[in-house]
């Protein structure tokens, strides 16, 4: 390796692909390291501004009007984590988000989170399991829960929007305290599960002492390709999930459904949104012994095409009033009928999960990590209340986890996550 190459390692942001290239030149592993992670936590001012690297492969932009990972299309893998905040002051919390801002840009660029140091007695500054992998369309999305505003030491009580409150109890809820609530959330989505995990691991590692982990859930989606276009993914009941979503390319619709507009909430949330997370167990064994006609009547759609019952195209109009022999074609107790009879809309972005076997029943522990984005929690609440006790799907699912988070607006270049809340 010549001098120029050595310099470029130390002075430039290092992509995870470069790490391998450099290692190739040296004939063996390169030492990665960071001098004083804790130092970095309190010395954001000394940290350089890190920009989106537009030349990086499979890269999603971090900076913008809104956070990434909300309108970003067709996510494949998610690592979702809910955290408890243990920071002792607003200043500590702010510094954590400043560090996370830098780390997030680097992670979404496919770079290591900390550059090289020469001291081999230190643990490496980046945990390293994403070495050689590119950005993999990683998106990182951050939100804060109602309980964060109750911590007196943070002095944020007056900043809490009225609507940011724990979701009400819904009929048939069987919540497991191990999957409820949280002060802060991180949603990491990527084409590669290891890239998503690596991102969360490094963010949590850098913030030890400021946060503890409360609960987490991984999830996955697979996409049928038609004419090179990703189709609506199927959930583990084999039904398409998300056919009725509003169009994310329609800016007007997004402003109506997803983004908080000026004057609609606390000003720090303008351009942000609410994230609802529900861990929904799906009873695959009972579903699998249910007749296909009954399954279709449960959802109100045809299984394979995703079309409304009695129609052929996935995106055909639902026309809830249609009748045959005096009976509604789409049963009034079907999931889609109950959802559509409410005027509220939301943007769903769910993932399937499979977590091994329930030790008590010997059944699959599998289901849906339901994630939805809306400008006001009542959009979700109204729809969920409409399902109530009538939804035919209730027989096959149980809601086990629940949390609500307010997601910050997007970050302007030079600023940081949550600047509007903490400054």
């Amino acid at each position, binding site marked *: *390796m010549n001098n120029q190459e050595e310099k470029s390692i130390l002075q430039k942001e290092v992509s995870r692909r470069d790490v391998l290239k450099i290692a190739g030149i040296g004939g063996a592993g390169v030492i990665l390291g960071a001098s004083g*992670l804790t130092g970095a936590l309190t010395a954001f001012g000394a940290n350089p501004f890190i920009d989106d690297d537009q030349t990086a492969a499979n890269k999603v932009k971090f900076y913008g009007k809104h956070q990434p990972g909300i309108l970003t299309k067709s996510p494949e893998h998610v690592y979702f984590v809910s955290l408890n905040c243990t920071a002792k002051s607003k200043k500590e919390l702010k510094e954590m988000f400043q560090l996370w801002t830098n780390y997030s840009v680097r992670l979404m660029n496919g770079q290591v989170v900390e550059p090289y140091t020469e001291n081999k*007695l230190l643990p490496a500054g980046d945990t390293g399991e994403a070495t050689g992998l590119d950005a993999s369309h990683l998106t990182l999305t951050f939100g804060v829960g109602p309980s964060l505003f109750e911590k007196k030491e943070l002095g944020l009580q007056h900043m809490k929007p009225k609507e940011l409150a724990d979701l009400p109890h819904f009929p048939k809820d069987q919540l497991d305290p191990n999957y409820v609530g949280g002060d802060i959330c991180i949603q990491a989505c990527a084409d590669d599960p290891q890239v998503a995990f690596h991102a969360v691991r490094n963010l949590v590692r850098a913030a030890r002492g400021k946060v503890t982990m409360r609960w987490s859930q991984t999830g996955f989606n697979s996409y049928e390709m038609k004419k090179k276009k990703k189709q609506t993914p199927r959930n583990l009941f084999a039904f398409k999930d998300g056919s009725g979503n509003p169009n994310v390319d329609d800016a007007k619709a997004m402003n109506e459904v997803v983004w908080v507009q000026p004057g609609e909430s606390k000003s720090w949330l303008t351009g942000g949104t609410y994230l609802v997370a529900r861990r929904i167990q799906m009873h695959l064994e009972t579903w699998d012994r249910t007749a296909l006609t009954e399954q279709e009547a449960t959802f109100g759609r045809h299984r394979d095409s995703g079309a409304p019952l009695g129609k052929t195209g996935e995106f055909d109009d639902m026309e809830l009033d249609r009748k045959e022999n005096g009976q509604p074609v789409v049963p009034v107790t079907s999931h889609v009928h109950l959802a559509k009879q409410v005027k509220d809309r939301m943007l769903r972005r769910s993932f399937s999960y499979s977590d091994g076997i329930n030790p008590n029943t010997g059944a699959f522990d599998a289901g849906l990590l339901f994630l939805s984005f809306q400008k006001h929690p009542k959009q979700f609440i109204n729809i969920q209340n409409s399902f109530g006790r009538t939804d035919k799907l209730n027989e096959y699912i149980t809601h086990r986890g629940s949390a609500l988070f307010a997601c910050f607006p997007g970050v302007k270049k030079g600023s940081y996550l949550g600047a509007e809340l903490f400054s």
Partner: protein
Amino acid sequence: MNQIVRNVGFLLLSSSLLVGCGDNASQDTESQKASESTEQAQTNKLDKEVQSYKEFASDQLDQFVVETEAFVEAVKAGDVEKAKELYAPARMYFERSEPIAESFGDLDPRIDARLADVKEEGQGEEQWSGYHKIEKGLWEEGTTKGYEEVADQLLKDVKELRAKVETVEVTPDLMITGAVDLLNEVSTSKITGEEEIYSHTDLYDFKANVEGAEKIFEIFKPKLQEKDAQLVKTLEENFKTLNGLLAKHEDGKGGFVSFEKLTKEDTKALSEAVDHLGEPLSQMAIVVE
């Protein structure tokens, strides 16, 4: 910057040595020399620290011999209550200096092996010796009968350990790795109650491991203060938090309550506090820079 560049170059060179590109022998020898001289330089810089740690460890193991003598005496006298009383406090001297005690691959298991460790090695209970074997007798069987020989052997092993300590080459590397290892010990076995399965005195070991790590931090502190005052502050705070959590479980008689008294919430809080401390503790390595 030049210094850094040179060092990275050196690291690349020395790591190629590790994977054994053996056909360029002269280069290997040179980089080995380079490596030795670098380590020499580091050791020289931290002579005072290394010396203090040696003194600390020797002192701990001196007391370990004394306390083990008393323990062995009680066992041989058949005084179950006395032996139970002496057991956990005596072991703390060993646990505090574990980075050094561990250096002897044969002595450490003879003194400190659990039955599970012995079985993992494919051996039976008859090959088992040391503190934990007597622990089983005291707490599970309520007797010292039949453990007299085990006790004699234990004292011999402990004395041998003390004698051998003088031969350990203490380096800053050993100290830095040792401090983190002490906390890792806590994370993997103490916090699960797997160390003291009969006596449930795990919190004594826990406390001693933390004290052992804190001692190393205290020794490096003046040097660390020059390099990263914030790191020192963070470590001080995190040690304080962890020690505060441990203090909640003191029994009011200078010891700790049984591990069985701890709730899931207690062990989770302790475990998280250990992780919060471990991450910045691993950054102590900047002291050699």
